[in-house]
Every structure is written in C-alpha cells, then in structure tokens.
C-alpha cells in the first residue's frame, strides 16, 4: 500500500530484462522478423525434397531471405514447394533453386542462385531451374557400385 520508489524501480528493471530476453530469443535467434506470408510467394518443383520441412530456410548467397511455407505433391507426383521470400528481392526469371545441406548431417535448406535475365519474378511465379536434394544413402550406394564392390543387400 505504501509508496516505495526503489521497489518500483527494481520491478521495472526486472520487467525490462525479461522483455529484452524474450526479444533476443524471438528476433535474433528465432528470426521472428520473417514471420508469416506477405512476401514474395514462389513455386519450386523438385523430384526429391529429402529432409526439407516447412519453415526451413531459403538463402541467396548464404544470406537468409525467407522460408518454406508449404510442401505438397503436384498432379505429376512431383514435390511442389511454396517459398516465401522478402518482397524487396528482385530475382531474375532464370533464377535456379537447389536443395542443399548444412554440413554433412545438418538441416536442409533451399539456395536460390540469381540468373542474368532482365525480367524479375513476381508473386505466384514458378522457378524453372531446380536441383533436387542429394540423398546421402543413394550417394553412398552409387559410390559403392562405381568402385566395383558388391553392394550390401
């Protein structure tokens, strides 16, 4: 009931520290600034997406520019991936997309490589040049076959 400025100040310090911690987790670590659609929606079709998941990263030259919003099958039974990238990006129409892996066993993500066309991609456009995910097991078994050793089966 009685006024106590020191306590109020300490409570203020406590709340500010807590909010700073939440902000750090959300923005710096969680990348909350890329939340939700509203950016540039592009469609990419792959033969094989491997371990790609919704909300995986999309990068250009290693810099995060967006995330995967949806993965589904199209009518030709190929994997149709919708990505959501920063709308300020001016990607040429001949941009190519590749599924890469960070490290040997790390998470998979999509790397976009801009081409040289003048025209730029608009929301809803499809990226035509794609490179599917490399599956480690397939690579190993191919390697084993090429070496002329019987594949373990």
């Amino acid at each position: 009931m009685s006024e106590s400025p020191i306590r109020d100040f300490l409570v203020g310090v406590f709340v500010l520290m807590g909010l700073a911690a939440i902000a750090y987790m959300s923005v710096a670590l969680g990348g909350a600034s890329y939340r939700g659609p509203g950016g540039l929606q592009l469609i990419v079709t792959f033969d094989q997406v491997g371990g790609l998941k919704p909300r995986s990263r999309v990068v250009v030259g290693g810099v995060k520019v967006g995330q995967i919003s949806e993965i589904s099958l199209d009518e030709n039974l190929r994997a149709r991936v919708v990505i959501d990238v920063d709308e300020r990006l001016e990607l040429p129409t001949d941009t190519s997309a590749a599924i890469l892996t960070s490290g040997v066993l790390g998470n998979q993500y999509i790397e976009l490589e801009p081409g040289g066309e003048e025209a730029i991609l608009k929301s809803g456009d499809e990226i035509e040049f794609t490179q599917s995910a490399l599956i480690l097991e397939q690579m190993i078994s191919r390697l084993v076959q090429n070496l002329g050793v019987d594949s373990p089966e």
Partner: protein
Amino acid sequence: MNAVPVQRLGRFIVRTVLNLGRFSVFSLQVVRISRYLPRRTRRLMDELYHIGWLSLPIVCVSGLFVGMMLGLQGYNTLIRFGAADSLGAVVGLSLIRELGPVLTALLVTGRAGSAIAAEISSMVATQQLDGLRMMSIDPLDLVIAPKSLAMIISMPLLSALFIVLGLLGSYIVGVIFLGLDGGSYIASLESAIVFQNDVLVSLIKALVFGVLVALIATYRGYTAEPHSAGVSRATTSTVVTASVATLIVDYIITALWGV
C-alpha cells in the same frame, strides 16, 4: 478387511473430483474478480517485486549452471560424432523448448509458489481473510488476484532470462573453456531455432505454467485449514501439485504442438 483399500480408493477418487470442481470454481472467481485489478496496481507492483524480482537471482544462477552443464555434456556426446559444431543447436533447442520453461516453473514453484501458499494459509489461520470480509473487502480481490497476476506476468520473463543465461553458460563452456569456434556456435544456434516452432512454444509453455502455479498456490492457501498444520500442508501440497501438474501439462503441450 478387503473393503478397506477399496473404500480408501473410492474416497480418494471422490476427493480428487471434488477438489477439481472446487478448483475450477475458484479459478473462475479469480478471473471474474480480476476486472477490478486496474485499481490494484500498487498491490501488483508489491507482488511483482516479491514474486519476480526476488526470484531473479535463483533463476539466473540456475540458468547459468544448467547451460554450462548442457554445454559440457553436449560437447562430450557430440565430439564422438564429430559434430561438436552443432553444440549451439543442441543446447538451444533443449533449453528453449523444454528445460527453460519447465525448470523455471519448478524453481518458481519452490521459491514463490510455496511462499504464496504459506502467506495466504497463515492469513486464513489468523483470520486475516475473515477480517477483510468483515470490512466488506473481498480477499480474492485484494490478496489473491494481484498475487496470481504477478505470477503469470513473471513466469515468461523469468523463463526467458533462464534461457538466455543458459545459452551464455553453454557458450562459456563450449567456446571459452573447450575452444569451439564462437561463430559456428552462434550460427548453429540461430539456424536451428525457428520462432513458431521453438520460441513461441517456449513462451506459451511459460505462460501456461505461470497460470497453473499461480492458481494452485493461491487455491491451496485459500482453502487451507485454519491452523498451523493447515499452513504446512498447504505449502507442501502446493509444491507437489504444481510440480507434477507442470510436468504433465508440459508433455501435453509438446504433444499437441506436434513437433
């Protein structure tokens, strides 16, 4: 003789259901009385000081050491697979998703939850709450609601501080003591954590735990028997009930989120 355990079981079930019902009614009353909270900022500040600020040291120290422990254990395990660079991801995910909210809830239950229950139940024992009723002051309004809200506000803040201190602790062990590359620690941390999957769940968990601990502690205190044995029973049962409830609800949220 066979009837005795059966009777006891029956009584236990009846009592549990009865308690759950009363607890729900109590919670509704607290929510309803909370519309008067804007008049109670003075009380709320006092409670935030007691519940939030005074829990800060224990939460920060615990966070730091849990992080250091995770750093050491994670490093020792990951180094066998040559994946020590993923330390940031391992520590970050376990802290943010589970350990941060859960351990904070357990610590705050032990420190502030038990204090709330003890304070309210001793107010029951010494007729202070009846005294308030005689002055036409609702104890739910003056005592229970500010304490509950302060707990609900404090929990996510404390949990976030626990997590950040934990990350610092594992950075200290991993990067400074064990010589990992600081850049790749941060990079693996940042790339592993997604706001919707991890941070949001973490905050929701902390908030839900705050509500749970607040209501359980105030309910146990409020319904305590009016003598000193009642005070100690209220305190003990607060810690036990709130801790178990935290762990059960943690599993339910994790399962529901489907990650």
